[in-house]
Structures are given as structure tokens and as C-alpha cells.
């Protein structure tokens, strides 16, 4: 089975992770721009970060046969540094039309402040202008209210709901998101967001339509193999493979393919690492069995 991890921060991960992703069948990933743990103090570090998502990180992924897409945006946490946020929003359009940018994201709310809302609205208007998909990060605290507000404001700004992906959902928020016609993404992330077992129950209850799995793997304790692991648990739990294929592969392509930046047919081909572009004989595509020991714990 092949997998698409629609939200993972590979900048924070090692080549071992790339190796394991490739072995486990993860063919493509989306890396949204986010907060790096340490707040940034100048616009230049944003420019370099966005450039690295488009350049170096994509190249690194290609060395392992993993197709790397990204989302570019000002995250909600750093939107609260308003003078810096202004500078970032001014240079953001420079990156939105680049190759492989499948969405504006991850944006939205963290503390649900006015500053966050202004940055969110401005980016939504950019997304409408550039005809882009939007990936919304939902807050950890006051999540349900944050998600409803994200949906309302996106609608007010004129974004079509089929171009909106709300991420980090749970049992309490899925219905609101699906009812509005947006995509509901779930981050299978140990201890905080969602576990593999709970995800199995959600898919059993709601079916596969407009549901997207991702790992949200980052610099925290997270699991880059969360998508293939959860898919395996779904199959073991008797969920039909066509359902699993939708939530772990096809829905991400359908949602983010609206960007015109995903070559869906190309992704179906067995990944080939272009030998002329291989750095120092770095290749992992040697066909070993994936390392998939256990589902992601709650």
C-alpha cells in the first residue's frame, strides 16, 4: 500500500526518518510552514525558512524517493508578533506561486487573539486571490471554538469550502467541519492529538469521505510513521482497504490537487531516484521491509 502524509515537518527530522518513510511506502508528504519552537525575530529567517522548504528540504526528500510538497504561510503563534507579522505577510506572496506549493498554511488560531485573526484574514484573502487551498491549524486550547471560528472567518473571506482543510481534528470537531463541506484532517500524534485506535473508530463511524490522515511529525515526540501504522491498524480492524486507501492516500491528493501542483499519475509510479542527481550515492530504495512495530499510543 502507498501512503500520503499530508502534514509533517521534515525539517525537524533525520535521514533515518526519510529512510523509514520510504520503506513504509510513504510516497509523498506535505510540509507546512510552522513555528520552529524558538520564536523568530526577523523577516529574513522566515524568507530562509520558506526557501529551505522549497529548495533544500525538497531535494533531501528526493534523495529518498519521497515527493515533497509544502504549504507556505505565517503560523498563528508568530502572528502575535505584529510588527514582524506585517513584514512576513508582505513577502509571503513571493512564495505562493512556487513549484510544489500546494497550499497556504498552516495558518489559523493559537490563542484566538485579534492579531491572529487579522493575519488569518489577510492570508485567506491572499488564498482567494491566488486561487489556493488553505491548511488550517486548529488550536490545542479551546479547540472546538477555534475550529468553528476558522470555518466562519474562511467563509466570510470568500474561500470555497472545498479549498479548506481543517487539521488536528478530534471526535468533538469532525461533524462541524464535515457539515460545512471542508476537509477534516487528523494528526495521529502520540499523547496530545489523536491515537491510531481512536482514528479507527472515527473512520468506522464517519466513513472515508473528506477525511485525511497525517502524522504532524515535528520536533516534538511524534511518529513519522503514524499514517502507515494507523492504516495497518485500520486494515486489521476490518476496515475495507478501499476506505483506508482514501483516508491515507487519495483524499489528500484530491484536496491538495486543487493547487494544480500534484502530479497524481506521477505519484503512482514506483519512485525512481534520478542517479545523476544523487548526492554521494545516497539511496535507500533497496526494498527492505518497513519497520512498523506498533500503533501510535494515545
Amino acid at each position, binding site marked *: 500500500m502507498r501512503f500520503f502524509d499530508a502534514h509533517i515537518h521534515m525539517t525537524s527530522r533525520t535521514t533515518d526518518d526519510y529512510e523509514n518513510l520510504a520503506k513504509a511506502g510513504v510516497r509523498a508528504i506535505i510540509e507546512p510552514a510552522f513555528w520552529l519552537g524558538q520564536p523568530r525575530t526577523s523577516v529574513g529567517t522566515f524568507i530562509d525558512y520558506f526557501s529551505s522548504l522549497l529548495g533544500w528540504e525538497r531535494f533531501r526528500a528526493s534523495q529518498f524517493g519521497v515527493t515533497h510538497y509544502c504549504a507556505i504561510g505565517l503560523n498563528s503563534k508568530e502572528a502575535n508578533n505584529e510588527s514582524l507579522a506585517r513584514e512576513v505577510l508582505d513577502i509571503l*506572496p*513571493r*512564495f505562493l506561486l512556487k513549484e510544489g506549493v500546494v497550499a497556504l498554511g498552516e495558518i489559523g488560531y493559537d490563542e484566538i487573539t485579534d492579531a491572529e485573526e487579522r493575519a488569518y484574514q489577510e492570508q485567506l484573502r491572499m488564498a482567494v486571490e491566488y486561487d489556493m487551498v488553505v491548511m488550517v491549524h486548529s488550536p490545542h486550547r479551546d479547540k472546538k471554538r477555534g475550529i468553528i471560528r476558522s470555518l466562519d472567518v474562511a467563509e466570510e473571506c470568500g474561500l470555497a469550502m472545498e479549498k479548506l482543510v481543517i487539521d488536528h481534528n478530534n471526535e468533538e470537531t469532525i461533524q462541524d467541519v464535515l457539515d460545512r463541506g471542508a476537509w477534516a484532517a487528523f494528526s495521529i500524534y502520540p499523547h496530545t492529538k489523536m491515537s491510531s485506535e481512536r482514528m479507527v473508530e472515527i473512520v468506522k463511524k464517519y466513513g472515508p469521505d473528506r477525511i485525511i490522515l497525517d502524522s504532524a511529525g515535528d520536533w516534538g515526540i511524534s511518529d513519522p510513521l503514524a499514517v502507515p501504522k494507523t492504516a495497518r491498524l485500520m486494515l486489521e480492524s476490518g476496515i475495507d482497504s478501499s476506505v483506508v486507501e482514501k483516508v491515507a492516500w487519495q483524499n489528500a491528493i484530491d484536496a491538495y490537487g486543487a493547487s494544480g501542483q500534484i502530479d497524481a499519475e506521477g505519484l503512482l509510479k514506483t519512485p525512481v531516484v534520478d542517479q545523476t*542527481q544523487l548526492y*554521494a550515492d545516497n539511496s535507500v530504495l533497496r526494498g527492505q521491509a518497513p519497520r512498523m512495530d506498533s500503533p501510535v499510543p494515545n
Partner: protein
Amino acid sequence: MAAPAFLRTVLERRLSEPARVWWTTTAEEIARGVSTNRFCALLSLASRHAPTDALQASAVEQDQATRTVPGLNLERWTLRDAARVGLITSRSDLHDQGGVSAILEAFRFADEGECCALLRSLALLPRGEDYRWQAGEGCRSNMLSVFQASACDTPYPAEFFDDVGWNQAVVKCLFVEAPLWRFHRFDQRMNADLARMALDLAEERRSAGRQVRHELWLCLGGHEASRSHDALRQEIAPDNPHGRGRSAAAYALARAGAIEELKSLRATESDPQVAAAMDDALAGNTDASRFRLLDPESPE
């Protein structure tokens, strides 16, 4: 300014009708003058119109390119590269600071494909000296596509790099195993320091029990004569299982002027490919471009 005629011809023949219309309109817009933001956006948008298919320039088209820009090799260009270089060279202000600033700004925000196209365009731009740092950055990149767009198949480095920059690009090329024979005017930029760096690298590799990249032997010329000679003798020895290295050493011996020694080695050579390289070298074919014959990536 308009894009060079050879580029316009190449594009007209290959772009689909809608893409051709987009490109022509866009080139005209750029020629009339656009803001830097707009210029950068148009370079990005080229990815939505021109595919990354190999350009596959015909011999006649390549010839036209070479007559316009000696040393420009289109062999590994994509159609998208050509479209972008065509747009870059459509600017009317490339002789002015405004044009230079716009190019530098495009470099600053470039993604991988844009960066490659910008680097490929440098040999076609006036005021080439204004882009030295960008070309050097291209050679410092670990993205092989970017490194090669800066260093290979273009006359820019030979014309504008100083010896430090040139030697670093050459030795990096050996490290990343990119084709060194694609460096334009390689033989004119030989220098003693490069030969020393190459010999040091060969010794480092041998100490580590690793193979020496065959193109390393290109770097010696007549410099560091005795060290070079010893290293080449070891490389060309019949017990070296690395045939490509032995062939390269044959060329290198000829390049160093050791013709008599090469003749006597030829008399006893049993490997037909090494023998062919020796014959070729003894016939006087010793310039760097002969290493194309030893390039596993290069269909002859």
C-alpha cells in the same frame, strides 16, 4: 531587449500553442518593463506553462546557441529552463542597475528550478561580473541540480571565477561526481594549485581505501611533475581493476607530455578499452572534452 533568436526559435518549436501564447505575451510584458515582484512571479508561473521535458536541441539549434554564446551547452536544459532564460533575457534594462537588481532579487527568492534557470542565464547577460557571488553560491550548493547549473555547460565560471573559486568548483565536482568534462575552457584554467589539490585528494582517497574519481586525473596537466607522474603510474598499472581510471590516466600521461612512456605501456596493454584510450591520446586527442568518452552518463 528580446531573448536571443536561438532561444525564441527553440521555444516556438516546442511549446504547446497555449504555452507559446503565454510565453510570447509574457516576454513582451517583461520587455516593456515590470515591477520586480511581477518579474519574480512570472518566472514562477513559467512552471505552470512550460514542462520539464528535456529540450533535446538539434545539432543545428545547438550550433546557433554556440555561435551566440560560445561554450553554452543546451544538452541538459529542460524546456522550462529555456522558457525562463528566455524571459530573463527579455528584460530591456539588463545593462542598467535596475535590471541587475531585479535579477539579484529573483535569485534571493528563487526555488530550485528558478535558481537553475537564473544560473543558466548568466552567460547570456551583460554585466556578468555583477553576478559572481550568485554563481559562487550556486557552486556552494549541495543541490546537485543547482551546482551543475552553475558550474557545467556554461562559459560563465571560466570567465568570471578567480582561481580559488574555480579550483573549489572543480574539486567539489569530483566530490559530488558530477561530470568535470562539462566545465567549459577547463584546460585554459589549469593551475599548479589545482594539481596539488587533486593529488592531495587522490592520496586521501587511496589512504582511505576508496576509489579515485577518474576525472581527477584531468586536473594535473604538466604541474607537480614528479608527484603527478607517480600517481599516474600507480593508476595506470595493469593490476588496477578500475578501467575508467586507467583510461583517464592514459589521457593524463599524454596531457603531461609523457608520450614515450605511454607508447611503451600501449605495447603491452591487453584491455581493449584502455588501449583505445591510449591510442586516442597518442593521436593527440587530449583536451578535457575527451573525458566525455569516459562518462558513464553520456551516451556517445
